[in-house]
């Protein structure tokens, strides 16, 4: 990859002007993360890349709808990708039930092949995330990868909503400690 580094503001301005070089930079920096997120949800490498492709085309075409006031660029892309994946899964008739049943032991070895390690300490992060208590990790995965609302988690896992909320917070606080 080229040496160019963009600040987020620059990147947003360039992408609003349909700058393909900036888009290329965006792809190089985020495609592996988004792809991993999608893969976690669909557990099908080919389908994941199809959705990834669609997600980036959407990011490119709908970039004007990104509002920096509402949050970081990465969060926006992540939400867009996640929603697209959920839509795809629903249109393909997948059920959340299936997703739940397969979430625990499915942390794939594919993640080890990634080459994004140069930019992020993926292996280190992975280890850190693995240290999360299973019930905390699980709750983040349900909410984060599968797009469950806290209400839905409460119903599906038969945990009171209050517990879900406090566990979610605890999980994120825990995660923050681990990655800081």
């Amino acid at each position, binding site marked *: 990859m080229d040496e160019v580094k963009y600040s987020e503001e620059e990147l947003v301005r360039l992408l*609003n*002007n*349909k700058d*393909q070089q900036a*888009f*290329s930079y965006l*792809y190089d920096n985020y*495609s*592996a*993360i988004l*792809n*991993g*997120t999608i*893969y*976690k949800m669909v557990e099908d490498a080919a389908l*994941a*890349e199809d959705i*990834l*492709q669609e997600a*980036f*085309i959407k990011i*490119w*075409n709908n970039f004007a709808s990104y509002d920096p*006031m*509402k*949050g*970081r660029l*990465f*969060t926006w892309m*992540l*939400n867009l990708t*996640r*929603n697209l994946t959920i839509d795809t899964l629903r249109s393909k008739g997948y059920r959340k039930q299936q997703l739940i049943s397969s979430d625990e032991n499915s942390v*794939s070895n*594919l*993640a080890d*092949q*990634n*080459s*994004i390690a140069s930019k*992020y300490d*993926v292996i280190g*992060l992975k280890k*850190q*995330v693995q240290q999360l208590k299973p019930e905390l990790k699980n709750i*983040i995965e349900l*909410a*984060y990868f599968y*797009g*469950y*609302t*806290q209400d839905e988690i409460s119903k599906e896992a038969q945990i009171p909503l209050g517990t879900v*909320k*406090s566990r*979610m*917070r605890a999980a*994120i606080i825990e*995660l*923050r400690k681990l*990655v800081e």
Partner: protein
Amino acid sequence: MDTKEIILSGILEQYVLGATSEAENAQVVAWAIAHPEIAQEIAAIQHALESFAIANAIEPKASTKAAIFAKINEHSSAKQAPVINLIESDTPVYTISNKWKMVAAVSIGILVISSALNVFYFNRYNNVNENLAVTKQALANEQAMAKEFKSNWDIARNPNNTLVSLKGLETNPDATAKIFWFQQTGEVLIDASNLPNTPTGMQYQFWAIIDGKPVDGGLIITNDEGKKYRIQKMKSFGKAQAFAISLEKAGGNPTPTTVVSLGKII
């Protein structure tokens, strides 16, 4: 709500996860602007979740990037004219995505094919209907004929009939006919199908010879094929010694002029 309550409520996590409503989003943004602690908290949550995502990163195939760039270049000419994006138009421009264009094209295609098939099947339906009518008519004819044959056959094989064969006389050796005579009822039926056709203006007349005298038995139709080949009903006779056929002028005569065929009752 004070900032601590907001932070403890869990809504910020929901917000970062994208699980909040539009109204809640607006509320969170308002809080973040008003309270730096909230903004900080949101940033920290985002950072934590990003780490979570990064921990699961998987490098996509190299071809995926190429495919994306091929798609965006196929779709937009914006790169050639980025200035256009800066011009704000007052009237909204409605564009139809290629997907829907494709759907429309396919729909029209299906409609055209469907219409063509309608015409095709309608014609075929008409033809079939015509054929059906023809077949029905043919069947009705066959049935009528079969009924006719059956009734003729019933007459011929009826054990109560007396069969009288009329033989042609020397002058008209071909003039033969068969008479079925039901003596109990006096009914007389004739099969005239072997009689030669009469010359124009002439007609066969049927006679019963009773006590040596010819008694008129009615006219025989021979020049109408439909009738000639069916058994014809003559006048009834309770008794007779012989039956005869003579050739007469059309309409018949009170007494026979030229007898052509004769059969005695044994």
